[in-house]
């Protein structure tokens, strides 16, 4: 060991040498202020005991969510040449392709927004949703080594996948801002509501992700079915086409699809037009209900993950 270096880093430490027994720095229980009352007493109940959301526990472990999200982001772009640029490349190329198809080959009326901006706004939210759901579905299985070794609220593993997706979305937003400037989108008060729709989309992704992650632990079928479901869902949602072209008798599908309400609301922020509040409220209600149900289902099966994963 280089003694100089270690002195510079930890001057108060007794020198650890390989020859003799190593003394650890003194520590006793009384000066460990970070141990909260939650750590003082733990009751481990049997499998039959009831289901609780236990939000207090989630709050207690909140920093772990931050570190898991950070890990997901860092690991994803380590050893890539272009790094975070990938976050922009994916929606950009998808947008270009759809613009080519729906703006050049087929003339599609996208309403108030120029088609490229229309497509990009839908695609950004949709790609965030699709990636977040896909990653959280796989997250529990790919973190099996953690789940079988140490306890923490397992909900944070899929939640971190959604969190990492949010960071990607923030970066990809630069592209949207650039396009807004290019098409001279008017600055309206509506823009202030953009975060609300991003937030709703994140809640929806978490709701779907928690459920599919919990199911995938036991039934791996979902891993194979998921890409297919996601693709169907995209074409059933107004991501690349406006809801106005959906025939009257299929409009109810748009209404019950929370993705449609959220994306349409998001676009209204850009156009400055009026919001379809009824549709947004339905989407929000479905999103919140789904999230609460998923969270309970997740908690119900959480303690079996280590045994079946």
């Amino acid at each position, binding site marked *: 060991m280089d003694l100089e*270096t270690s002195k510079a880093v930890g001057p108060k430490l007794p020198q650890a040498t390989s020859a003799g*027994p190593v003394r650890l720095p003194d*520590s*006793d*229980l009384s000066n460990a202020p*970070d141990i909260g009352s939650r750590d*003082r007493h733990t009751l481990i109940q049997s*499998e039959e005991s009831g289901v609780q959301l236990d939000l207090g526990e989630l709050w207690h472990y909140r920093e772990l969510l931050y570190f898991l999200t950070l890990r997901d982001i860092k690991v994803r772009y380590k050893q890539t040449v272009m790094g975070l640029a990938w976050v922009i490349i994916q929606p950009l190329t998808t947008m270009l392709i759809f613009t080519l198809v729906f703006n050049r080959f087929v003339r599609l009326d996208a309403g108030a927004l120029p088609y490229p901006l229309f497509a990009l706004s839908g695609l950004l939210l949709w790609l965030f949703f699709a990636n977040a759901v896909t990653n959280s579905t796989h997250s529990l299985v790919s973190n099996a080594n953690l789940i079988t070794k140490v306890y923490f609220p397992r909900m944070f593993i899929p939640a971190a996948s959604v969190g990492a997706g949010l960071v990607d979305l923030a970066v990809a937003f630069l592209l949207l801002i650039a396009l807004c400037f290019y098409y001279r989108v008017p600055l309206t008060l509506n823009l202030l509501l953009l975060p609300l729709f991003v937030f709703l989309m994140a809640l929806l992704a978490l709701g779907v992700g928690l459920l599919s992650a919990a199911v995938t632990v036991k039934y791996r079928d979902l891993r194979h079915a998921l890409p297919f479901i996601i693709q169907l869902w995209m074409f059933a949602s107004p991501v690349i086409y406006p809801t106005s072209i959906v025939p009257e008798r299929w409009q109810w599908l748009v209404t019950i699809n929370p993705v449609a309400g959220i994306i349409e609301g998001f676009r209204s922020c850009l156009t400055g037009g009026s919001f379809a509040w009824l549709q947004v409220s339905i989407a929000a209600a479905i999103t919140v209900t789904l999230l609460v149900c998923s969270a309970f289902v997740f908690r119900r099966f959480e303690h079996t993950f280590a045994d079946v994963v």
Partner: protein
Amino acid sequence: MNTAIRIANVSKRYRIGGLHPGYMTFREMLGGLVTAPFKKRSNGQQTIWALSDIDLEIGQGELVGIIGHNGAGKSTLLKILSRVTRPTIGAVELFGRIGSLLEVGTGFHPDLTGRENIYLSGAILGMRRAEIDRKFAEIVAFSELEKFIETSVKWYSSGMYVRLAFSVAAHLEPEILMMDEVLAVGDAAFQQKCLDKMHEIRQQGRTILFVSHDMAAITRLCKRVVLLERGKVTFDGEAHEVVKRYLSSSLKSGASREWTDQQAAPGDRVVRLRRVRVRTEEGETISVVDIQKPFGIELAYDVLEEGHALVPVIEFYNHEGTELFSTHDTSANWRRQPRPRGTYTSTVWIPGNLLAEGSLIGNVSIMSHFPVTTLHANEPNAVAFQVVDSPAGDSARGDYVGPMPGLIRPLLNWVTAMEQAHENRDKQISSNQDQ
């Protein structure tokens, strides 16, 4: 004494699906739904009880060893205590933060740097960010990896990896610490660190659960040992008692070996073995030998042909297969004496404070040297036994509890004398002590 861990009536059932993997597919589930009503209830679900009716109470500051064969339920118990899985029946109460050194490096990601992994692994093990910030310098210094802390851990050697991982775990400061077979991994210096850490934690009055196959480590560290057999606690008490039980059921060639059929016994037309055993001075057969007590290896054999001067020989090997020494019968009464036919016993006495701890194996043979050296009987691995040390402090290890290298462990005379007193410093020390 306050309770640290209370395990009440805990049982854990696992479903075993034979050849099936741990998870199901929808098709299996649907198929199961269809066929279930036509199946007999009894063979519908195969289950095993990994743990049944475990009742244990462990006090604060206790150091308890848990011992058991593979599949006895040790790791299931640890998984329940660390809250990775829940018991099927029963409940556990823990008083204090629990930390485990079951798997060093839990939560490490190979693509992240040492610094990033310290934070990630620390958070996963239950540390707060502020706590890691405060201890960061200590953790790095303890791991001796200052130069590599910004390097991805996948470029680390396995030794560096383990050092970093252990440093994080060692700074968790749990009130209850669980240790698995960590002593089996890493080099000697790392094992030393583990043991030092354990020693320190014990001195701070924290509770330690130590799970191991390593008999020598268990007996010298723990006073109380719990024996798990097929999911049940079959013994809970003094270390030496429980180890004796464990060994008697685990060693293939035990402390005593007998051949009832003379034709099949090791030997030739001159001599055949009857019995070999490890014995105390009182004549009791033992499989666990106290490192400080003398013990004997006793051979019983039949001499079938008269006129040979026979020499019993025993060779001692340790568990690594290293021969420690061999010993020949050189006693005066039968030396170079042709023996009449009959049944004999020969016993060699091994003094206390000679052998090192661990598993030992005795090879037994009988030879003669006239007219030429001839091997009449030879039985490799005739007996196996365990030499154990106690934490009492009166053996050759004194108060040291770490692993002691060496094939033998003699208790030798040391003489320490003070040649010259250093006045000033002496006064300082004594005045400090007065305060």
